[in-house]
Structure formats: structure tokens, C-alpha cells
């Protein structure tokens, strides 16, 4: 953060006269039951994201911050610089310097390969909300593909729900005493590269990351009962992404192999996406996503079935549904989300999440046990400044 502010203060002043926009979001989650650890039923939060963007064709400046306050859970409070970078475009390369977000991957429901940024773990299950990462990135676009080389300057710890938060692990997480396997702790400079190209209907990417794992392992806290401390180890992770377009069917998969994080393991997500345009002779589209998961570390390999109804109206109305089915433990998670634009300024979304928690212990590892009291309804209203 401090480093980020420093970068900003040394930027030439004229750069900061770009386009200014922003976003205000109000969010309310109502849980049907009191939490397993006696947490409140109603949780509200508010967030503000100011943004400045300026494109001088060969030089691009972007700033975006995110501030969030939660009524119950101080673990969800956030002051984050999401973007604060300059891109300089040269004849044969482009260099990005500053704080930014970088997405890697092709699948929809789970992101195996994506590792540049730390995940904002207090925001949703999809792991798509990220924290800004300081970096220097050099990109080469050539006939043989796009090569991005990253030096990642310092490490962001994962944020977790606090003791009053919902959808949290039964044991509290003592973030203040995080452990590192590297002696430089969160100052370690990590390296990564990603090569990607496409050949007609085939997209392919290979990446490697060498540095502090974004995903921690947990150890019992030495000075607190019923608490865990995150351990951030130095890992090597190689990733492969493949996507193939077969007419209107998109077949995709991503797989990683990671070492340094316990025994070397492999994890993968793969499946397909298909859209029925003009569903039932209407102007609606119905999109389908089916994705399977595998992780050497887990007994279970849940699969996800998602659908998206797009009404293609002027409000961009959509209804999303998703089932997570864990066949081994007979668990089921269900999500339903409806959203639409209101006027030209605003967006409203309503969401319901339900965990089908079979109490019976069939001896199988469970995914949702910690969330058995956490079924909720959520309303979010976003106002665009």
C-alpha cells in the first residue's frame, strides 16, 4: 500500500488528468440461521471504488482503489489499491510497472492456473475478486505468440473473514502471525511467465510461477487455542490452459502441477460451455457450463453445472444458476442469482445460496460442513458515478 502511494506521488501530475469514474456498492446478506459460532444473521457492507484511466496511445495510466466496510465482520474491511500502473508501449515490447491485476485461465467456475494476484477470500466463492499486486511485467507480441514475463514485487497475504464473519472456517485464522518459508517473508520477489497463442480454433497457454504461494497451508496457532496460522511457502507451479472451439461448443480445461506445498500435486478443472442462441424461438439465450474438478489433495472431485438465461433486453436482465455436486459425500450446493440494470446508472442483483447438508456421516470428506448454517439471501445495489 505504502509503496503504491509512493509510486502515485512520483507520477507526473499531468498523467492524473484522465477520465475519472467510480462505483458505490451496497450489499446486504441475510442468513436464515445464527452462525455455528453465534454470528449475526444480518450483514451489510458498503464499498467505494474510484477509478482514473488515461490512454495516451503509447502510454497508459490506470488507478483503481477499493474501500469496503462491513457492519459485522472487520475481516471484510478492505483498503486496497487494485490498479496503479503505467504501461509504456515500445516498438518491440510493452512494459507495465505498478500495482495491477492479471487474469490467467480459461475455465468458468474454478481458476486453477490464475496465480499472479492474491484472492480476496471474503468476497464470494468463485475466487474472482482479487487484491492488487505490485509488479513489473514485460510483454512480447510475436508471430509465435504472446510472452508475458513478470517480476512480482512483494507479497499480499490472503484476507479471511474475522470471528464475527460468516462462511468461515470453524477455527479462527490468526492473520497477524502469518508464517513464511522464505526468510525474506512478504518482501520476496517472485517470478512468473506465461506464453499464450491461438491456432485457428485452438487456444493454448503455458505458464510457470516461482514464488510465495497465494494459497496458504494452516498450522495450529502456537499461542491461541482453536486458532490457525497461515503458512505461506515458496512453491513452483506450472500451468497449462487449453481451449477448443467446436462450432458453438467451447471445450476447455486447465491443469496445474505444484511443488513446495507439501508433496507435489496436480489439480485440474475441465469441461465445456455451450450457448443456445434464441432459446425456444425467443430473443433469450441460454448458456450452459459443465465443469469437473480434480485435486490430488482432496478425496472429492465436485462437479459444477451452471446455466445463464440472458434476456437480451435493454436492462441486460440475467438469471444465473449453479449446482455444485459432490458425489462422494452426497453434498449439494445451489446458487441462484438474478440481475438487471436500473436506469442508466445502476445495477441490482439478488442472490440466494443454499447448502444441502446431509447430517449423516458417511465417512467421506465434506466440503460444506463448515457452512451448514450459512444459507443466505443477498441483495446488491451498485451505483456508477
Amino acid at each position, binding site marked *: 500500500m505504502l509503496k503504491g502511494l509512493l509510486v502515485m506521488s512520483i507520477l507526473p501530475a499531468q498523467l492524473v488528468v484522465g477520465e475519472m469514474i467510480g462505483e458505490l456498492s451496497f450489499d446486504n446478506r441475510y442468513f436464515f440461521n445464527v452462525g455455528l459460532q453465534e454470528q449475526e444473521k444480518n450483514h451489510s457492507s458498503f464499498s467505494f471504488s474510484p477509478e482514473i484511466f488515461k490512454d495516451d496511445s503509447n502510454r497508459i495510466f490506470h488507478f483503481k482503489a477499493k474501500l469496503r466496510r462491513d457492519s459485522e465482520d472487520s475481516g471484510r474491511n478492505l483498503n486496497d489499491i487494485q490498479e496503479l500502473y503505467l504501461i509504456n508501449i515500445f516498438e518491440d515490447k*510493452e512494459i507495465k510497472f505498478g500495482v495491477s491485476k492479471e487474469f490467467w485461465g480459461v475455465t468458468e467456475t474454478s481458476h486453477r492456473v490464475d496465480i499472479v494476484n492474491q484472492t480476496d477470500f471474503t468476497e464470494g466463492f468463485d475466487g474472482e475478486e482479487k487484491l492488487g499486486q505490485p509488479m513489473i511485467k514485460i510483454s512480447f507480441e510475436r508471430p509465435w505468440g*504472446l510472452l508475458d514475463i513478470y517480476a512480482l514485487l512483494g507479497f499480499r497475504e490472503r484476507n479471511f473473514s474475522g470471528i464475527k464473519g460468516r462462511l468461515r472456517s470453524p477455527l479462527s485464522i490468526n492473520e497477524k502471525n502469518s508464517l513464511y518459508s522464505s526468510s525474506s517473508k512478504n518482501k520476496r520477489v517472485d517470478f512468473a511467465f506465461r506464453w499464450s497463442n491461438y491456432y485457428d480454433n485452438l487456444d493454448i497457454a503455458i505458464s510457470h510461477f516461482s514464488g510465495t504461494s497465494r494459497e496458504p497451508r494452516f498450522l495450529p496457532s502456537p499461542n491461541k487455542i482453536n486458532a490457525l496460522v497461515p503458512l505461506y511457502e515458496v512453491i513452483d507451479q506450472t500451468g497449462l490452459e487449453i*481451449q477448443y472451439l467446436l*462450432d458453438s461448443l467451447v471445450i476447455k480445461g486447465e491443469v496445474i502441477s505444484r511443488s513446495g506445498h507439501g508433496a507435489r500435486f496436480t489439480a485440474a478443472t475441465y469441461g465445456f460451455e455451450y450457448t443456445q442462441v434464441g432459446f425456444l424461438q425467443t*430473443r433469450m439465450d441460454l448458456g450452459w457450463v459443465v465443469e469437473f474438478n480434480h485435486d490430488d489433495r482432496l478425496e472429492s472431485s465436485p462437479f459444477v453445472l451452471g446455466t445463464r438465461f440472458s434476456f*437480451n433486453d*435493454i436492462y*441486460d436482465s440475467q438469471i444465473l444458476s449453479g449446482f455444485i455436486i459432490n458425489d462422494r459425500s452426497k453434498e449439494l450446493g445451489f446458487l441462484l442469482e438474478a440481475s438487471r440494470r436500473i436506469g442508466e446508472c445502476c445495477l441490482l442483483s439478488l442472490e440466494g445460496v443454499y447448502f444441502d447438508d446431509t447430517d449423516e456421516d458417511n465417512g467421506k470428506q465434506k466440503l460444506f460442513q463448515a457452512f451448514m448454517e450459512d444459507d443466505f439471501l443477498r441483495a446488491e445495489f451498485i451505483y456508477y458515478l
Partner: protein
Amino acid sequence: MKGLSHLKNKQFTALVMAMILASITGNLFANKGLEIAILSDKNNDDFIDSSSSMTMNLINKRGEVVTRKLRFKRLEVPTDGDKSIAIFESPRDVKGVAILSYAHKVKADDQWLYLPALKRVKRIASKNKSGPFLGSEFSFEDFSFQEVEKYDYVYLKEEIYQEKPCYVVERKPLDPYSGYTKQLVWIDKENYLVQKIHHFDRKSFHLKTQLFKDYRKYEGFFWQPHEIEMINHQNGKRSILLFDDVKLKNGFTDRDFSQNSLKRSR
């Protein structure tokens, strides 16, 4: 040829001659439509690149209007279809969303969608092109470049449209994923500019009428319509696309139309 071997040489020659003749005369009628389409397409040659701002007004049956804004960049690819980027400016919740398209003469176009909130570039199946574009009466297909090679043509007649003598050409999309079975295209005889298109849906129903208005000439040769209206006869809605700030010779290169360039767009 084995089946023909019992024919005598003379008979065979006559047969071949008849076949060639039939194909030539058949083509003569079909070719006039193609010829007009090629001449019309020539209007788009050698512009190298262009940029413009677009305002799209979506008008419902009661006459209520909502407005969408986009920026549009296009690069000519001499041996293939053009490359283009459409960047959404408004409504605010989709600001920064961008679509990159590589049109191809015969095979399906390549398309990518950029989602700025996730900073994700996502390849999309361009075959899904019959759906509405941004909730408008234009489909993705109406927005893509209509390469000559993507249709079969039949010349129908001459007709005066809005005081302009026009050719009327029927064209049928060769792509089975097209939302249309047939289109009637009015092309003026003077400049070979498309004036009007009637779109027929999969049930051969006259679904939509597209009107091209306010053509202006840039750099002495490039004709740009400044207003394109799409009327949907089924639901009574209309969409009007207005072009502004049309600029040629922006000095764009392939790098401005790469997947990587999408990530820089916001």
C-alpha cells in the same frame, strides 16, 4: 468417368459442351448479383483503417428511447476479412467491455470478449451470432463485416428507392449459423452503396428492415453511412445507430487489434 466410357467420343464431347454451356448461362444470371455485390464491396477497399464513435438509440413500441455509446476501430486486412474492436462506453455497468473480431472471408470469424472487472479476455464462439447486440434490434451478425464470399447472390430487378435507381439483389448466407435465410439488398446504381436490406428469418418471414442513411465521403473515396436504422417488424422496436468522429488513416497496426491490446483498453 468410368460410367461414361460406353459413350462414343463424339457424344461425350457434345455432352461436355452442353454442360459447359449450361453452367455459363446459369452463371450469367447468378453473376450479375455477385458482380453488383463485388462492386459494392469495392467501396470498402483501401481505407486502411478507420475509427468512429457510435451512438445507438433503442426505441420501443411506445417511442421511449435508451441510449448506448460505443467506440469503434477497424483495420483493413488485404487478403482476409477486417479486424475490428468495439469498446462499450455506456451504460456504465458495461463501460470498458470490448469485443475484438477478426472477420474471415469463408471460415467463421474469430471473436474475443474483454471483461474489465475480471481483466479477462475470453474467446467466444462467433457462431452464436444471431443473438441481439447490446439488447438492440441489431444482431451480432448485422455488426460483422459482410464479406462477399459469405453469400450466394441472385440479381432480381431494378427499382427506384427514395428517388435513387437501385439494383435489388437477393443474397443467401452460406453459414448455417446465420439467423437469416435470405436478405434483399437495395444497392444504388450510381455509387453502389447499400441503401436498404430486408432480413428474412429462419421461417422466411420478413423480420427486419435495415436502412442506410446520410452517406458521407471521406478522403475522396470512402463512403460512410452516418445513420443506420434497424426496424423489427415482429416486436415493433427500432434501433438507430449514429456515427460520429469518423476518421481514416489513424495509423493503426495489427498490434492495436491483438488480444493483448484488449487488456490495455481499460
